[in-house]
């Protein structure tokens, strides 16, 4: 109990200290790397020797509130923000980010791919954030489940049909529904539909939303769901049910599997998400660094971005925290067990022969949340409430069309490029 109390007191003190914002300090506010151990690594390893920087963390929604509050108050305390692409997106509309075009040349020089730089424009002309680190989603399974793989199936090249057969076999042998998805209130299930299921079955996300392929996809997914642990609608992070043995096979963001893999690197295997008729959809996750307008210390924030993009810093991030470089950098071979599993899973995903990369939604502005809701509501209607796929898809397509019309977002990969707003066929 004592160390926890000490930690809490420390955290409270740190919070007070952060809010007070020592004048010469550069405040770096992040929605990523929030757990105490990770934040400590950022402070003691990643930001070591770069001068006075206060690394503060905030959950995504208080983060938005704080940024909006500072914008409205006209008083900035934060010089640098680090957050996911989807969390930075709403800041453009609420004037929480200023352009960082002056820093983009250096980032490109370091080897940040053009596709990632383009994401950082958040649908506009100017660079609004500099890519910071990337991750993706993979699957993890307890080694005991591998014995029940269907004949002829290779865990690294699974199809959705094989995943279903596997989950069914595990259920028959162990009596429990051992496949799990993060479909809880804070889970990232919407990204599974947008980056994995839809591309794999339909080759698109928006334009194919209510296609015949999509109808077949939902029917198949509903079929698969019989073997999915019903607590999935409460799971936010799959590492906990994996560690507790509640599920044996799980899909999630690498950062949300990491604890389980670190706790028992010898018990788990990692592998890419399954493939469908159109390929093996996968979605990279990008965190970016942005500078709010009127930042108290813009020069130092720019310097910090420069530091965070150095190859050695990026490699340290991978080794210590399990996020991957956005710049050209060689990962060392002696990574710790859990991180090694993550790296393997990601590498297998990216190099899969049938890999079908999907971008994060582009150009939706503040409508990103409602866009996710369309996919979650469709899931709820078809899979959880048993509505007929055709009727549910038609109804949800109307909501999706309203969002696309309002934001005028053109199609993004894997949908085919469009002139004007992305059509829903």
């Amino acid at each position, binding site marked *: 109990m004592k160390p926890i109390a000490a930690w809490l007191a420390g955290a409270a003190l740190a919070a007070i200290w952060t809010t007070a914002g020592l004048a010469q300090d550069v405040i770096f506010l992040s929605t990523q790397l929030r757990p105490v151990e990770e934040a400590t690594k950022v402070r003691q390893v990643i930001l070591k020797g770069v001068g006075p920087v206060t690394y503060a963390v905030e959950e995504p929604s208080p983060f938005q509130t704080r940024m909006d509050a500072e914008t409205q108050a006209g008083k900035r305390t934060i010089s640098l923000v680090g957050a996911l692409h989807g969390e930075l997106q709403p800041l453009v509309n609420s004037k929480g980010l200023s352009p960082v075009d002056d820093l983009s040349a250096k980032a490109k020089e370091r080897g940040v791919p053009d596709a990632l730089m383009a994401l950082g424009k958040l649908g506009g002309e100017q660079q609004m954030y500099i890519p910071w680190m990337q991750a993706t989603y993979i699957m993890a399974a307890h080694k005991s489940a591998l014995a029940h793989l269907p004949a002829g199936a290779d865990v690294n090249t699974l199809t959705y049909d094989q995943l279903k057969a596997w989950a069914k076999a595990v259920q028959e042998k162990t009596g429990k529904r051992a496949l799990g998805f993060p479909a809880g209130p804070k889970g990232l299930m919407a990204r599974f539909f947008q980056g994995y299921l839809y591309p794999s079955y339909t080759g698109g996300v928006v334009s194919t939303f209510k296609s015949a392929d999509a109808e077949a996809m939902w029917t198949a997914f509903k079929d698969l769901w019989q073997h999915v642990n019903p607590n999935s*609608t409460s799971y936010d992070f799959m590492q906990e049910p994996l560690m507790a043995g509640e599920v044996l096979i799980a899909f999630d963001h690498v950062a949300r599997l990491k604890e389980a893999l670190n706790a028992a690197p010898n018990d788990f295997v990692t592998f890419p998400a399954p493939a469908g008729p159109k390929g093996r959809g996968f979605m990279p996750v990008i965190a970016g660094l942005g500078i709010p307008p009127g930042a108290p210390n813009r020069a130092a924030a720019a310097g910090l971005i420069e530091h965070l993009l150095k190859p050695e810093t990026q490699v340290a991030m991978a080794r210590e925290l399990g996020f991957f470089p956005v710049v050209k950098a060689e990962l060392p071979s002696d990574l710790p067990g859990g991180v090694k599993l993550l790296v393997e899973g990601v590498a297998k995903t990216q190099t899969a022969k049938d890999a079908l990369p999907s971008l994060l939604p582009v150009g939706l502005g503040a409508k990103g949340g409602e866009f996710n809701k369309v996919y979650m509501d469709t899931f709820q209607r078809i899979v959880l409430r048993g509505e007929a796929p055709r009727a549910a898809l038609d109804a949800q397509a109307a909501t999706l069309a309203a969002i696309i019309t309002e934001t005028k977002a053109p199609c993004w990969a894997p949908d085919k490029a469009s002139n004007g707003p992305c059509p829903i066929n």
Partner: protein
Amino acid sequence: MERSRALPYLLIAPATIFLIALFVIPLVQTVVLAFVDDGAWSLTNFRKMVGDLNFGLSLRNTFLLVLVVVPLQVACALLMGVMLQKLDKGRDLVLWIWTIPLGVSDLAAGLVWLAIFQDRGYLNTLLAAFGVIDGPTNWLSYESPGSMFLAVALAEIWRATAIVLVILVAGLQLIPKEYGEAAEIFGASPWTRFRKITLPLLKPSIQSALILRTVLAFEVFAVVYALSGRNFPVLVGEAYAWQHVNQNNGVAAAYAILVMAISLAATLAYIRALRVNPETQP
């Protein structure tokens, strides 16, 4: 003279400023948020709210919870209050124990009940120990809406009956003993005395307790969230989801306005239904 006239205003000023800053201004801002879309007055947010997949369900769930939980709580609290009156010794101790849940935050209460009802919770352990079940039974998943509702209702009853009890005990203590003694002399049974004397004289307290409890019950959120996530949507939970997950504070504000309207309507209904004639009071 001048000073004494200003004094009352000075004395209520801090409370007034506090209320204006932290209640009236946010309320006005919420109303504006709810009724404005793209910088113009509109009902778009309300249309979106009503057209939402979970709207009907969350409305139904919230009302169901209120209709089940509040009457049970009032009945329990009445029973407990009358029992307390009959206690000669240890009355304070019993009252103190019964009001412990008041000191527990609602999220913490939800987590306590989660520890009981979850797959590896105390309930399953107990049932398994007695051989009633073989393995973990799911009480809180979307597949078992019945037991999920029961769990939420039970947690709410446990958590918030004490507030009703406290109000009713205060009311019971105000009823003069003479009425009951007189009735007893005329041969009235305990049940008649309770119906004809205690209940009518307790009406003002019951009214306050009902208003307070019902308004709070319409705002139920943390217990539901802890126990069921979003498997059991309620109105305030939807407001939270629209604000934080769907990032549309207009629709979230519309939900807030709806909850406020329902609470106001319930309060007015109670005031009318339980109107108390001041002259009938002792």
